[in-house]
């Protein structure tokens, strides 16, 4: 039933995207593409943070790692993007496991600061390892994906690629959410000790959730690289990690719909507030802060004003109540 609803959501995404691809001007299509790619990263972050409760301020580093592996293997080794992408995703997930083993013994703000340090270190390395990453000049001319010799390089066709990817990601995330692994992940955040007491190896599960989340990030990174076709360390600075977290919280953490809504909203917000000029970012911070204070369950929490509390609202509210 719930699985069906997720397929419904996936269809909605495709239909909405299809309509939008016909009516939106080129520039807005570009933003829409960026927001779809961000959604994929944020759905990944939702697994680490929304389900397992790992506060990661280094998600952009995983997006960046995926993007750089993709960029380097296509431009240097001449690998097809279709081959480079799974390699980048797998390598990033493996990296997350390796780093997660020591890292995930930390909790709360220790983990937040450690992941922040990880992100900053990533940018320093990417900026200075000139032979490999081109330093701050970045890597240009990353090839687009192509199907049957048709390059997916214009915004309209990329939108289809992005939407199909998002649909795939949503379906996988929903299947995960409603599987034994999803419940186990959620139980670990709710009460780690009680989860251990049901025979769950919580350490292993946390690392698994972290790796899964990193894999999503890397997938988003690969799409980003092939969309923008030029990457530099700036694209993956820790400010982006914070942006991903803000997207998730504004949308409604713990929910896939919230992750998508937050990503779209915060990608378009600068555009809508463009008349403010330089004051935009000052207002952006304030808006996020106000959402935290007045809408702690994010935009999806607004649903209860529209109709009775839904299942999603309930679970999110319960989560908000219980956290120490």
């Amino acid at each position: 039933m719930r699985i069906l609803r997720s397929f419904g959501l996936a269809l909605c995404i495709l239909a909405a995207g299809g309509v939008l691809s016909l009516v939106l001007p080129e520039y807005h299509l570009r933003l829409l593409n960026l927001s779809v790619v961000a959604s994929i990263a944020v759905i990944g972050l939702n697994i680490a943070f929304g389900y397992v409760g790992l506060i990661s301020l280094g998600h952009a580093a995983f997006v960046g790692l995926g993007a750089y592996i993709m960029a380097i293997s296509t431009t240097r080794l001449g690998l097809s993007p279709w081959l480079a992408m799974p390699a980048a995703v797998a390598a990033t997930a493996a990296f997350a496991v390796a780093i997660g083993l020591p890292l995930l013994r930390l909790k709360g703000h220790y983990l937040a600061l450690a992941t922040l340090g990880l992100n900053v270190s990533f940018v320093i390395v990417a900026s200075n390892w000139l032979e490999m990453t081109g330093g701050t000049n970045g890597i240009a001319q990353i090839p687009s994906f192509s199907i049957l010799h048709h390059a997916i390089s214009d915004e309209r066709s990329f939108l289809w690629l992005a939407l199909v990817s998002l649909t795939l990601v949503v379906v996988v995330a929903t299947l995960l959410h409603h599987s034994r692994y999803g419940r186990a992940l959620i139980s670990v955040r709710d009460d780690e000790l009680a989860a251990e007491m049901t025979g769950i190896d919580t350490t292993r599960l946390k690392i698994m959730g972290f790796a899964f989340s990193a894999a999503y990030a890397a997938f988003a990174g690969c799409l980003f690289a092939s969309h923008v076709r030029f990457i530099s360390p700036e694209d993956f600075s820790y400010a982006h990690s914070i942006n991903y977290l803000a997207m998730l919280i504004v949308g409604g953490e713990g929910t896939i719909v919230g992750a998508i809504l937050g990503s779209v909203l915060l990608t378009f917000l600068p555009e809508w507030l463009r008349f403010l000029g330089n004051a935009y970012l000052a207002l952006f911070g304030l808006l996020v802060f106000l959402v935290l204070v007045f809408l702690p369950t994010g935009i999806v929490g607004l649903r209860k004003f529209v109709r009775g509390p839904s299942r999603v609202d309930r679970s999110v509210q319960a989560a908000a109540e219980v956290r120490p």
Partner: protein
Amino acid sequence: MTILDARNISKRYGGLAALTDVDMTVSAGEFVAIIGPNGAGKSTLLNVFTGLVVPDSGAVLLAGNDVTRHATNRRIKAGLGRTFQHGRTFPRLTVLENVMVGAAICPTLGERALRESALQIIEQMGLADIADNAIRTLSYGHRRMVELARAVACNPKVLLLDEPAAGLNSAEVAQLVKRLAHLREKHQLAVVLIEHNMGMVMRLAERIVVLNFGSKIAEGAPAEIQANPAVLSAYLGEGYAHARV
């Protein structure tokens, strides 16, 4: 047959001896209660059984295997189950999903089979009409029942219950006693019960272990314990008089 065997368990916290040379065994299907005043080391003993506390000395054997250094989740998989003193459920999951987390201990069950087996336990525990409710809508008594159901779903050979009746009203306590008796019959599981409610202990327990200041001061059938002068002076006096009423 002995399922759980704890030998010479000692644990100190700084200068405080939480447990001193405690021996305890539990046979298959047996109902054992641990009683003693607050701070006697009862919960610490359960923590040693479940691996939350590593003893300074001594060994814990589960079905003949030494698990003293094993992680908690391995012990649970090997047949231990436990509930906590104040009840710990997963608030973001429904009642059914909570129990399914427990049932997932069996790695081969598919999603549908998981749901079936969880529903069966929910039925037995009398929680069928709230199976799809969110935890936060439940009363404290119901939450504790959900926790118990989740522990049972892990299919334990020994179930460790830490004050399951604390905070429940008398009707709920009566329900709990009934369910526990039923569960034992149905699943042939052994139960180790920590409880201050002496009425409940005397009705259910086949054997009672009495701890005081971290040491075992008596062990025996309820009738023996009631007559044991050391126990009476250490603990029972007031509580027991109350329970007799």
